[in-house]
């Protein structure tokens, strides 16, 4: 077990393409870190640099305080779980699990004990004598996990390990990974493009875009206080609504509506406003609020996603399925639930709505146009 340090790490390919630029992450011992971002954001490259499968162009990676830039993957004391499992097809499950230990000259008795323990943990005992091709996707995934566990490494590296599984299996394996990591307490870096997987697994999330870190933080912090419009639109499902608004003093013009914020926002003029779909409510009497023209409705059972327009900007609201939808709705939101981003840079503008007093439906003072 060890901490991992990623300092000013960049990956520049021949030809000058920068895949990862100046990334800094400090990972504590035993922490579960999830690197999340769309494809091509450099998350896998970063993980592979930690594993030693890619050279580090600039910067330094330390594992347990030891700089590993020039150390072979086998000597970094890490174990990796690959997306397509990467099991050795000519070996039985037992041999797959034992291979890494055998090559490290682990005594035979200990190999047997460790494989038995991992097989018990992952419920692989009935399959130890089988070849990988005789296993189902979920079983293969568990063998891949087992191969990492038996090594008892300083760190687990997961490269989109659940992407090849079907949706149902993915949910159960997700739980299993979390449970296992808790149990063995090994520092882990997990790469995924699935924000839900990231939210549910991570102790801390690292949101990457274009080879840069957008935000590092605990899942709920990232969810509730996204640092940029990118994070806001990437984390959470449905994505946060981002609409153009204008701030005048303590008032916000949003489409045809004017919202009294109750406190000044440290910006004036054009601003990007973020509204989570589940923070939007139906305004009681149909008078005032954000006039909302409904386009179509997605029924999810417990709630419904209502797609429509506020002024000329699209908006999604997550509303209870219990309440009948009026022909033309009007929405309200607590001012403290509003997020403001700089329109040009996309960065979050922090403001405190607490000064606005008790959280209440936004007071819409007048309807413009």
């Amino acid at each position: 077990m060890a901490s991992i340090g990623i300092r000013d790490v960049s990956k520049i390919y021949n030809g000058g393409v920068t895949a990862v630029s100046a990334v800094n992450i400090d990972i504590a011992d035993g922490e579960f870190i999830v690197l999340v971002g769309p494809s091509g954001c450099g998350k896998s490259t970063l993980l592979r640099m930690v594993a030693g499968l890619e050279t580090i162009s600039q910067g330094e990676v330390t594992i347990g305080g030891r700089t590993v830039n020039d150390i072979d993957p086998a000597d970094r004391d890490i174990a990796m779980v690959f997306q397509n499992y990467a099991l050795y097809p000519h070996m039985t499950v037992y041999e797959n699990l034992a291979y890494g230990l055998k090559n490290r000259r682990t005594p035979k008795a200990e190999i047997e004990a460790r494989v038995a323990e991992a097989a018990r943990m992952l419920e692989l005992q009935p399959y130890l004598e089988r070849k990988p091709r005789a296993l189902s996707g979920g079983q293969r995934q568990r063998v891949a996990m087992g191969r990492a566990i038996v090594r008892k490494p300083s760190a687990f590296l997961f490269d989109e390990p659940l992407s090849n599984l079907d949706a149902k299996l993915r949910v159960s394996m997700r739980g299993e990974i979390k449970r296992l990591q808790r149990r063995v307490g090994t520092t882990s870096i997990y790469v995924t493009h699935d924000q839900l997987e990231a939210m549910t697994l991570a102790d801390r999330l690292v949101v990457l875009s274009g080879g840069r870190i957008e935000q590092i933080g605990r899942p709920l912090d990232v969810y509730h206080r996204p640092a940029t419009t990118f994070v806001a639109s990437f984390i959470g499902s449905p994505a946060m609504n981002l609409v153009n608004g204008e701030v005048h003093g303590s008032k916000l013009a949003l489409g045809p509506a004017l919202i009294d914020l109750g406190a000044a926002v440290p910006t004036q003029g054009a601003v990007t406003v973020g509204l989570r779909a589940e923070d939007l409510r139906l305004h009681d009497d149909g008078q005032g609020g954000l006039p909302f023209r409904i386009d179509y409705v997605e029924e999810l059972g417990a709630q419904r996603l209502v797609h429509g327009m506020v002024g000329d900007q699209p908006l999604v609201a997550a509303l209870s399925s219990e309440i009948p939808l009026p022909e033309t709705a009007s929405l309200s939101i607590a001012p403290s639930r509003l997020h403001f981003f700089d329109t040009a840079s996309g960065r979050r503008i922090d403001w405190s709505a607490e000064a606005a007093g008790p959280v209440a439906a936004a007071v819409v003072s007048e309807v413009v146009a």
Partner: protein
Amino acid sequence: MKRVQFSSPYLPYLFIAPQMAIIFVFFYWPSVQAIQSSFYLEDPFGFGSTFVGLSNYVDALGSAQYQSIARFTVVFTALVTFLSLGFGMLLAVKADAVLKGSSTYKTLLIWVYAIAPPVAGLMGMMFFDQHIGPLVKFAALFGWDMKVGLNYNDTAFAMIAVSVWKQIPYNFIFILSGLQSIPVSVREAAAIDCRSGVRRFWTMTLPLLAPTAFFLLIINMTYALFDTFGVIDVMVKDKAANNPITLVYKVYMDGFRGNDLGGSSAQSVILMIVVFVLTVFQFRFIERRVHYN
């Protein structure tokens, strides 16, 4: 799966008829003829033949010369197969590991295969030419007075060298494509699990290459047994004298130079049986250990 029905039960036979005709004319018929004439003593001038039973076989197998040629053939085949597979694999593994300019490197190695076999054989011969051969001059630097065509061992060496040289690119192509069919992530997993590259090769790469290697083993043995005829012919130029030759060349010498068609037929039947047994053995005992993905 969709079942295709032919309107007439004879139609499928009609479709495979051209293929069967070719196999029949060029394989079954000559084989039957060889088996038949191996039991006869043929008049050298074609005036008749006498049934002699198994005596052609007894003569061939009992002759000391035949036995020594058989011994050489075994050594020759083993060495050519082993060396051409070994070098082919070494080059393929190294070419596969090259990162910069790898396609150039691979193309250069594969190019050799595009040279027509007789040309390649001739080039190989020139390397061992008594007067202009660079390899003869190179050997002379170490005090080795190489006399290809005169000295038994020197000729054997040249034969093996040229035969191996011609076969390396073929093996190279197959092994390289076999290597590239091993998933990258499996190799990476192995790189994390095992520090030593040599050990990774023996425990990971080679077992996954086994299907390719098994195929090449059969092809290379057949090559060494039969297709090296041209190389040997160029080396000994019809006059074997006390130079080494393989069994196939002996069949040719006895049949077409010695005009002993019966004896030569018996030898080729023996060869046919050897190849048959060898192939059955390979499929029964070696293929079992091969892992097909």
